[in-house]
């Protein structure tokens, strides 16, 4: 464990750039904290916070300090870099009587800056889903992960319920805990891989002392104690399976827009559509995979019609898959407690409230 100053954080950014990584991190755009390329620590949303999240509501606010990571998660997750919204699987060109495939491009080497514990867990969930996906695996192998432990919780956060956070517990190269008080501004840094350890060794900074570690522990405990939402997982999968005909599904459907926002912002949702596109002259074609949603009618289209034509059936599919059947399919829950589906649902449908209502009924 090492204690980095602000200069140390900047040195970390410079070292990653020096190793050829494109840095991706949170930044302020259109009154939200989104992910995008950045080069310097000062480009982070310094002094901003987004913790006042609620169902269908997201507003930024100024912090009283200059914290660099004093917020939780925005609308985007790292999914868009590992499982991009649109991906060309291959390009083909007509050549003579046959066709030739364009060679695949090497994956970009990216450093993800500020990955929260919930999103770290989500990456590990998608690692299981895309275990046989060469594109995903290549992007994943080329990624360097700088995790950030949360020291505050958002209004729709429930990582404690999902046992995924607020502290990063593996799956990172480096993990930082920001200590931002009147007395000091520092980052307690921990290596989680050989690459992370080598990088940390080369950074300026002193070994973290007992006071640093205690302060970091306290800050993370503060986040854990202030979760905005809670989900009781004990027996939940069984309870949901036993309530597939519950009238509450229809009650949710009356509010649900079936717009698909929850599935787009979910860091574990992985459904995709594959489409072939050809040029007008038919000389070139590409196969494109793009994010799909179980809220779309066509998603459940089979010979004879749509299996899930009602909104109730589609919401039930999403929620039961996420909280019950995901366990059977991948051995983990499909929910990491990031809260995005609650915040970014235009009408604020709350997975924790719906699960509780179903269980109670």
């Amino acid at each position, binding site marked *: 464990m090492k204690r980095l100053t602000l200069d140390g954080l900047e040195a970390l950014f410079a070292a990653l750039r020096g190793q050829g990584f494109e840095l991706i991190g949170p930044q302020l755009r259109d009154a939200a904290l989104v992910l995008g390329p950045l080069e310097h620590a000062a480009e982070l949303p310094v002094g901003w916070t987004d913790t006042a999240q609620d169902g269908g509501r997201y507003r930024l606010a100024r912090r009283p300090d200059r914290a660099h990571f004093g917020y939780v998660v925005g609308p985007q997750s790292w999914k868009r870099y590992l499982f991009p919204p649109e991906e060309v699987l291959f390009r083909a060109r007509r050549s003579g009587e046959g066709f030739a495939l364009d060679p695949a491009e090497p994956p970009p080497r990216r450093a993800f800056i500020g990955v929260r514990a919930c999103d770290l867990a989500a990456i590990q969930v998608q690692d299981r889903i895309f275990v046989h996906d060469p594109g995903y695996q290549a992007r994943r192998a080329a990624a360097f992960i700088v995790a950030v432990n949360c020291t505050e919780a958002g209004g729709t956060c429930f990582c404690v319920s999902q046992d995924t956070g607020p502290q990063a517990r593996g799956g990172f190269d480096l993990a930082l805990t920001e200590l931002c008080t009147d007395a000091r501004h520092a980052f307690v840094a921990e290596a989680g891989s050989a690459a992370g350890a080598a990088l940390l060794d080369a950074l300026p900074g002193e070994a973290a002392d007992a006071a640093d570690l205690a302060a970091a522990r306290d800050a993370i405990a503060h986040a854990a104690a202030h979760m905005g939402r809670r989900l009781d997982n004990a027996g939940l999968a069984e309870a949901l399976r036993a309530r597939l005909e519950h009238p509450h599904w229809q009650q949710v459907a009356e509010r649900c827009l079936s717009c698909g926002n929850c599935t787009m912002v979910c860091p574990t949702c992985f459904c995709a559509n594959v489409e072939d596109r050809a040029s*007008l002259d038919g000389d070139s074609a590409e196969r494109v995979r793009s994010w799909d949603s179980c809220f779309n009618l066509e998603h459940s289209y089979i010979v004879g019609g749509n299996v899930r034509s009602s909104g109730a059936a589609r919401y039930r599919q999403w929620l039961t898959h996420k909280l019950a059947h995901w366990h059977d399919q991948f051995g983990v829950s499909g929910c990491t407690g990031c809260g995005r589906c609650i915040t970014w649902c235009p009408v604020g449908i709350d997975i924790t409230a719906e699960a509780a209502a179903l269980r109670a009924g």
Partner: protein
Amino acid sequence: MNTRSARNAQAPRRPRLAVWKFASCDGCQLSLLDCEDELLAVAEAVELAYFPEATSTVLPGPYDISLVEGSITTPHDRERIQQVRRQSKRLVTIGACATSGGIQALRNGRDVTEFARIVYARPEYIDTLATSTPIAAHVRVDHELRGCPIDKGQLLATLAALLHGRRPPLPSHSVCEACKRAGHVCVMVAHGTPCLGPVTQTGCGALCPGCARGCYGCFGPKETPNTAALSAHLAALGMDDAARRRLYQTFNAGAEAFRKAGDA
């Protein structure tokens, strides 16, 4: 270029494309001319057999693909669309006028004679129907391109798909999904701006939310639109009934889901 020309020379004939105009502003058919970079490829892939905006050449039907713009608002056009259908192997309607009746469908259910009397010095010259209706209300339509105007990318993708015997990729889900794929920030959740994206069909590339404006529904209702739930939320954002009616009832006022949501 040479191989392509050689192949075209061997081909028996290029598919014939016709572009028809009914009650409309011409903006959608101009989307075809607006293809600029791809225009030569279009001209090589099809024979422009009837397209008065582009050429005075008129080749006789039948036509392999007909693009139909505009709505049916006169007795004469009601007859003409039947002839267009008879001459067309594939009929694709383009734009909000052709697919839902357009902004001129605002007259539906109101007193058109009175409108004509107020607007025109000699209303007796006006020969018009009481309603503006989409093409599909009169003839069988193979595919619909929504929007005011249509999206050029969707037009090209549809032509390419039809030329190669495939179903055009025209998804009917929400604008929101395109918005999220593009990485736009939700204007409703983050800014409190009213937006019809959750009930509107995708295809525009989420243009308006990408400019931090609410979607005004020019692509018309998506599949299974839950306008009641959205309207309740719009009211919570402070929108009154009159503003809600104006929001839903513009370019797709004739689309049933938006008409009802505006009247509710």
